[in-house]
């Protein structure tokens, strides 16, 4: 756990440094008109690949702690949160890389729904375009899906967007109910 957190910290510092540097030189990262969500999205896309092997195996409690750290670097639309992820119900273990993947794909889903529902459309379009390259998603099943969604959005619709939104909507209902049962606010 300590080694993984140390790696995440180094990665975060590298990304933050790269973003500052890109901003100073006026190329690469977000332009001045981009807001915090777009900047976070681009930082995630610019972050280095996760270590091979999937990282440490974590129990639900440790996974929740890591997820809370990861969540600080993942953009969400207004009213979004991660209260619906069932870390406390998780039996057995989950790799640190999958923890990050779940958090990021959860966020991507919230942006897909925001774009479909006409909320924060400009940011949502940029985030949806970036998501396949996010650090925890790229090169994984979720990355393939995110790339398919981005392509379908550009095309004005398609089967991947439809299928993924169906799962996102179902998860949203489940997450809101789970969060409420836990005494927490549900995501918008």
């Amino acid at each position, binding site marked *: 756990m300590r080694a993984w957190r140390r790696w995440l910290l180094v990665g975060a510092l590298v990304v933050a440094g790269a973003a500052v540097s890109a901003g100073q030189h006026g190329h690469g990262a977000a332009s001045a008109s981009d807001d915090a969500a777009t900047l976070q999205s681009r930082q995630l896309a610019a972050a280095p690949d996760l270590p091979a092997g*999937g990282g440490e*195996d974590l129990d639900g409690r440790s996974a929740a702690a890591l997820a809370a750290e990861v969540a600080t670097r993942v953009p969400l639309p207004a009213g979004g949160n991660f209260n*619906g*992820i*069932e*870390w406390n*119900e*998780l*039996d*057995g*273990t*989950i*790799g640190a890389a*999958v923890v990050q*993947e*779940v958090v990021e*794909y*959860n966020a991507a*889903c919230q942006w897909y729904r925001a774009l479909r529902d006409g909320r924060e459309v400009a940011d949502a379009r940029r985030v949806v375009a970036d998501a396949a390259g996010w650090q925890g998603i790229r090169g*994984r*099943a*979720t990355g*393939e*899906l995110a790339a*398919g969604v981005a392509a379908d959005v550009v095309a004005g619709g398609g*089967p*991947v967007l*439809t*299928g*993924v939104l*169906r*799962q*996102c909507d179902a*998860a949203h209902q*489940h*997450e809101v109910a*789970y969060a409420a049962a836990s005494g927490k606010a549900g995501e918008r």
Partner: protein
Amino acid sequence: MQVRRLTAGTLSVLLAALCACAISAGAASGYVYTDIIDFNLTETTHTYGTFSISGVGDNSAYYRWVDDPAHSTVISGNSCIDLSLYGKSDIPAHDVAYHRLFTGSAYQCFALRGRTATGAGPMSFYDGRIQR
């Protein structure tokens, strides 16, 4: 002669259409397969990784052991979004047939998880396959 040419042309179009239909039907009833290498299990549930239901199958996720499993195992699929359980299958020892984990929808993402049966002990370096 003109009639024969038209007939031959029409036949060609019909044959092409039939071939296209056959290819389309084949794709619609197909599956995507992914090998699961070294799914190392203990009596505590372990997460292998994430996958998605393809757009060409029957909207279900299946699992089989390729290596003859020494122990009974429990294999499951959980949501990539909130980790809620979609479904699971109890696979007896020495069973290498496909077992349906759950039925969902095209492009639904799931995390593959598994463990050995209580009291069975660990099972290491066994390969499996997902049909999705």
